[in-house]
């Protein structure tokens, strides 16, 4: 049996968002979220970790070029320079860092397989990140 490894590749995307619950009147949104109701943006950093046996032949857990392609096509192209509130994946969901992590997982799991995808880490800025493992 081959040893297990965890490989992480880092991505980034710049996206706009605001905190807003459509079902609430403006006053309640402003009371709850304050300045976060104003449309603004972040340079997000995304760390995607996959795990699995280290292939005895290639020495790799995953071909990082494949990981780069899958995450690039599935997540980065979709969210980079996009308005997250307008993305169908956030319909009825506030694009908080938590919900972005869950959305990224939900987008990647069918492509990479839940047996390979280990963790999604979304950094909103250098002081805040959320880890989600499905």
């Amino acid at each position, binding site marked *: 049996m081959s040893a297990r490894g965890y490989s992480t590749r880092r991505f980034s995307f710049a996206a706009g968002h605001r905190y807003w619950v459509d079902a609430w009147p403006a006053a309640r949104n402003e009371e*709850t979220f304050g300045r976060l109701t104003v449309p603004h943006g972040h340079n997000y950093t995304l760390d995607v970790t996959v795990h699995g046996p280290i292939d005895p032949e290639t020495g790799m857990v995953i071909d990082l070029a494949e990981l780069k392609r899958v995450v690039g096509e599935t997540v980065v192209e979709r969210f980079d320079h996009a308005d997250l509130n307008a993305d169908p994946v956030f319909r009825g969901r506030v694009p908080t860092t938590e919900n972005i992590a869950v959305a990224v997982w*939900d987008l990647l799991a069918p492509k990479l397989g839940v047996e390979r995808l280990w963790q999604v880490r979304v950094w909103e800025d250098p002081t*805040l*990140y959320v*880890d989600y493992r499905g």
Partner: protein
Amino acid sequence: MSAPLMAGMSAPLTVLAAPRLELTRVYHFSAAHRLVSPRLDAEANARLYGHCARPHGHNYYLEVTVAGCPDPLTGMSVDLGRLDAIVAGAVIDRVDHYALEEVPALAGVVTTGESLARAFWGLIRNAGPEVALVQVTVVETAKNRFEYRGGE
């Protein structure tokens, strides 16, 4: 809120609870310290801790990880304002620009990264018992990080 997609599985029969995740907030403080064990004499301390026995300081980072489930409506798992206030009151305001050996809340603590992480865990726990603490990390320098996950 949709449940996470499971490759190769049909949709769950029941609606799953909101996904559990971990949120980490990074704080910063600068402080002076020196490693001195009260159980050892000056010569033994100098021998054991070397350079670290001399008064010096660091730009520390404190990473606080909490568990939570995003609220289906607000998408937030943690009240970040409340967490920031707890960590500021329990730790940052007490240690930022102080000598750690003179901080009353750290009395009796040899200020290694490991012991600071454990002490900060206790201070945060006392100030905010409702916080679902998962890990407290003290980053002393770019080369040293110390993680404490509770327990003895």
